[in-house]
């Protein structure tokens, strides 16, 4: 399983792997332009494969009021 942590909300989720960053965001109904994805402190491009056992962080980037 892939562990996905949302850094803004603190919520965690588990998903089946492997899948690319692009696939992961699509499955989570997230738009690529509104988040960044990190693994082990490194930013990931949308083609990177995430495997079972990996932990990734989702960082929402939209702010304002």
């Amino acid at each position, binding site marked *: 399983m892939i562990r996905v942590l949302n*850094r*803004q909300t603190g919520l965690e989720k588990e998903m089946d792997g492997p899948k690319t960053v692009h696939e992961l965001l699509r499955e989570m109904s997230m*738009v*690529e*332009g*509104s*988040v*960044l994805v*990190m693994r082990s402190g*490194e*930013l*990931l*491009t*949308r*083609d990177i494969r995430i495997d079972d056992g990996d932990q990734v962080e989702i*960082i*929402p*980037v*939209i*702010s*304002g*009021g």
Partner: protein
Amino acid sequence: MKCRRCQQKALVDLKHHHTAFCKECFFEFVRRQVRRAIQEHRMMEQGERVLVCVSGGKDSLALWDLLCNLGYEAHGLHVDLGIEDYSRHSRQKVEGFAKQRGLTLRCVSLEELQIPIPLLARRSRRPECSVCGIVKRHFFNKLAVEGGYRVVATGHNLDDEAGRLLGNLLHWQWEYLLKQRPVLEAVGELLARKVQPLCRLTERETAAYAILRNIDYVIQECPMSRGATSLRYKEVLNLLEDRMPGTKASFYQGFLKEAAKLLEVWKGKQGPQPPPEGELSRCSLCGAASFGDPCNFCRLTSV
């Protein structure tokens, strides 16, 4: 993906530019975009002294970092809004950033002035974001003028401005449309010039820059901004951007190019006339620049 420039492993992909960059090449890309915005819109002179409005979020801290890197004498101004934990947290981030880099920072505490945003919003029965805007604009300009800064820089990015443009168009806010520019010129000694050097960069790009530069910023959203319409406009634009990369940039950049023509129509006899604006003078209560007397800030704080 590989970096377009050096073929190293890419860390940031930019769909709307059909490209990807490694860390160092991404920094160069971001600096180039900021330099271009500054030159294109004649925001300031090389090395000029500038007051940067810093909230503790990714955009304003990234902007401060960038302006220092590009050789500007950039000093920070933080308004502590008095919104409980969020404001405490934000101030810590700004102070930590300034201390780590040895930068000049001035903080104004609304709690100490006994005018925290939640109290002002409650008393005036106005939305928090509207109250916050009035208060921040007041202090940014007041302290810029008092400190002899000719330029005030804010961290508004492409997403902010495209979202604002969408909102202004959806409601046909003509007077706001005409003022929506990345540079608002100074007015005599009363109003400093306001500039938005991040106007060519998306929110995702400034966030990636902040993370790669190890800038410790506030990730949590302001609790007062939940459900704000500006966030809905950004969401809609991001959905369009996802299907049609480049939409946000062409929407906003196209507006800036066409805005001059719009202005001509507005001022001409064919178009609707802008509402008459009072003459800029000093508020008789606080001395700040204002089109009315008392100024919006004094009206708000004396409710």
